[in-house]
C-alpha cells in the first residue's frame, strides 16, 4: 500500500490518531535535544539527525511494576498484575531503532516469553521514518543495515520534499492508513524513488565504515586478546552506554513496599557495566574487573547474540559512543577487533 501525506496534513493526522491512542514522536526538548515524547501535534520534528534517545523506553520501561500486592487486615493477600493495556503509536522511528525493536521482540519472545513487553508491542503501531541525516557517530551500514530499511515498522514514511511518501508494511499499518484514508493521497508512479535517493545521500554522509558483517562468528576470537585493557582502563563503568543503547535488554527485579500493607515486585534497567550485576550471593563475582565487563558488552553485541539468535544485537546507531563521557568509541573497538581477527587468520 503506497500513499502520500502532504506535510501540512501531518498535524491533522496526529490529531486524528490521538483520539484513541497516545502518539509519541520526536520533539525538541528545552535542552535542545531530540527526544521521543507524547505529542499534541505541532511540535513533532521529522528531520535532522537521529534523536539522542531511542524510543526503547516506551516498550521496555526504565522501571515498571510486575505485580502489585495488598495485604488485608484478615491476612488475605491479593496480587494484581500491573501492566497497562493502552494503545500507543510511535512515529518517526529511524531504521536503526526499528531494527532494535525487532531484535527486542525476538529476544523477549524466545523460550521465556515476556508478556509485558510483548503485550506492549502488540498495542503499539510503529511508524518508521527513512533516515535523511546521520549523526556523527552513526555506523548502521557497517552492520549491513540501511538508512531506509523497513523491517520492524508497521508503516514507513520518507521525506519527499513537500510530502511524505508513506508505505503500509504490516496489516496493522495498512489498517491505520485505511482508517484515515481521507488524510492521505494516492501516490504517484515514481514516488518510491525517494527511498533510493535518501539511501544514497545518507549513506554517503555516514562517517564510519568498517565491514562488521565480515566479522560475523569471528569476534569471539578476540576474547583473549589485549585490546580490552586499553579501553577498560579509561572506562569509568558508568553504564551510560548501555542505558542509552536501544538493544540493551537487561533488567533487575526487586520488591518494595509502598505502605504497611501494599507493595510491588518491580523491574528496572540494569547494566553489565555495573560490578553488582554479576555478583553472586557467595561473594564471588565472575566479572569482577572493568576489563571483563567491557568485553562482555562488546562480545554480547557482536558474538553471543550471533551464537544464540544468528544476528548482531547492535544496530550501529552510535549512541554508546555519543554518550560515553570518556570518549570510548564502539567503532574504534571494532577496528581493533578486526585487526586481531585479520592477524589471526594470516
Amino acid at each position, binding site marked *: 500500500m503506497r500513499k502520500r501525506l502532504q506535510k501540512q496534513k501531518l498535524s491533522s493526522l496526529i490529531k486524528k490518531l490521538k483520539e484513541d491512542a497516545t502518539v509519541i514522536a520526536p520533539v525538541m526538548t528545552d535542552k535542545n535535544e531530540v527526544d521521543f515524547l507524547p505529542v499534541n501535534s505541532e511540535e513533532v520534528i521529522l528531520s535532522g*539527525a537521529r534523536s539522542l534517545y531511542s524510543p526503547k523506553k516506551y516498550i521496555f520501561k526504565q522501571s515498571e511494576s510486575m505485580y502489585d500486592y495488598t495485604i488485608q487486615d484478615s491476612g488475605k493477600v491479593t496480587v494484581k498484575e500491573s501492566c497497562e493495556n493502552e494503545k500507543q503509536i510511535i512515529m518517526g522511528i529511524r531504521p536503526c531503532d526499528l531494527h532494535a525493536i525487532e531484535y527486542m521482540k525476538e529476544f523477549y519472545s524466545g523460550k521465556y516469553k515476556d508478556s509485558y513487553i510483548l503485550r506492549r508491542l502488540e498495542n503499539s503501531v510503529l511508524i518508521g521514518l527513512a533516515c535523511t*541525516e546521520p549523526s556523527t557517530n552513526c555506523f548502521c551500514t557497517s552492520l549491513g543495515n540501511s538508512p531506509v530499511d523497513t523491517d520492524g515498522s508497521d508503516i514507513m514514511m520518507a521525506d519527499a520534499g513537500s510530502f511524505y511518501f508513506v508505505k503500509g508494511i504490516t496489516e496493522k499499518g495498512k489498517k491505520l492508513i485505511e482508517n484515515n484514508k481521507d488524510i492521505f493521497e494516492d501516490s504517484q508512479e515514481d514516488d518510491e524513488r525517494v527511498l533510493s535517493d535518501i539511501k544514497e545521500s545518507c549513506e554517503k554522509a555516514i562517517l564510519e565504515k568498517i565491514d562488521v558483517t565480515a566479522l560475523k562468528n569471528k569476534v569471539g576470537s578476540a576474547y583473549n586478546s589485549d585490546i580490552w585493557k586499553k579501553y577498560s582502563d*579509561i572506562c*569509568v563503568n558508568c553504564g551510560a552506554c548501555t542505558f542509552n543503547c536501544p538493544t540493551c535488554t537487561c533488567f533487575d527485579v*526487586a520488591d518494595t513496599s509502598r505502605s504497611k500493607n501494599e507493595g510491588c515486585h518491580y523491574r528496572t534497567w540494569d547494566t553489565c557495566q555495573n560490578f553488582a550485576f554479576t555478583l553472586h550471593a557467595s561473594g564471588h563475582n565472575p566479572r569482577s574487573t572493568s576489563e571483563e565487563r567491557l568485553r562482555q558488552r562488546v562480545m554480547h553485541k557482536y558474538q553471543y547474540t550471533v551464537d544464540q539468535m544468528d544476528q548482531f544485537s547492535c544496530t550501529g546507531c552510535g549512541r554508546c559512543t555519543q554518550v560515553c*563521557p570518556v570518549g570510548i568509541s564502539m567503532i*574504534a573497538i571494532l577496528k581493533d577487533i578486526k585487526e586481531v581477527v585479520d592477524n589471526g587468520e594470516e
Partner: protein
Amino acid sequence: MKKQIEKNIKSLLHSIWKSGDMAISWTKTSIPGKRTPFFIKNKNQIDQLVFDTFCAVSLATYLTEFNRKEILPEDFKGKLHITCKPCDARSVMQLFSDMQVSEELVNLIVIQCDGIADESKLTKIMSGYVSNIEEENDRFICKGIGGTEKSVPIRDCWLDKCSDGKNCDLPYYYGYYFVGNETEYRKRISNLLHTKTDLVQDTMSPKELKKLVNKELSSCIRCNACRNVCPACFCSDRCVFEQPKVNVKYLDSEDASKNNILYHMIRFNHVAPNCTGCGECERACPMSIPLSMFYKYFNRLMWEEFEYKPGKTNSERQKLLSYHLGEDLV
C-alpha cells in the same frame, strides 16, 4: 601557542620520567571533537599525548581509590604524573585534603588553559553531525552534512565552567609544575566576567527550589554516570546506592522519578562539602541534566556559611565533617 604547550608538556614528562612511573593524560580519538584519557605506561608513549581545546575530561577521577587500583600497572613503583587544567587541579587538591590519594604518589602538572570546548554543544550547533573541525584563531570551522561549512566562535562552545570563570583559580599549592605562562594565565582569568546567571538562584523559595528540582531531575535514568565520573565521589564500592560487598539496595528504583530525586538529594548532601564545581557530572549526564547548577548552589551556601571553597588547597578539612574544639554544636 597550544601546540607549543603540548610540546612543553611532552618535554617536561620526558625530563622527569623515571622507570616505573605512569602518567595520565589525553589523546586523540577518531571522533571529531573528542579526546580520551590516555595512560602512559612507558616513556615511548609520551609523544602520543595531546593537549588542545577539546581535552574536556577531568583526569582527577582516576585518582580515586577504586579507579586507581584498577589502572596501576603491576610493576608500578614510581610517581603517577597527571596532567590537569587548573580546574581539574582543584579536584586533585580536594582529593589530597580528603586523604584519598597521597601527595607522595602524585606529581601534578597544571597546564595553562584557554577555555575548553564542549563537544556536545558543538554537535548541537551543528545539528548532530560534524565530520571535521579545524581551529582558526578564536573560531571552529566545522564541516557538516553534505560538506557544508560553519564557522562557530569557540566561546559559544565552551564548557559552562570556562565562561563562568569561577573555577579557573590556581590552587594554593607549591608542589605542582606549571606548563605555560603563569602570569599570562592569571591575567586572562582575572578578566573573565563571571556574569553567567545561575539556574538555581539564591533568592528562590524552598517551594520554587523544589519545583525546579522536580522538573530537572525527573528525566534522570539513573545510569550513575554522574556519580562515576565525579572526582569528589570516592566511596567506590562502599557507595550507599549499591553495596557490592553486601548487595543491599538502600534506595530502590521503583517509581523512577520519585526515587531519582532522593538519589540526587543524597548525592548533593554527600558531595557538597567537597564538590569543586568541575562540572564533570553535567558533562557526563546523557540526559543533559544541569547538575552542576545544583552543586554550585551548595558551593555558594558553603561559602556564605564557612567561607570555604573546596579544592583551594591541599590541606583544608571539609567543613561539614570537622569542627573546632569549643565550637557551638547545634
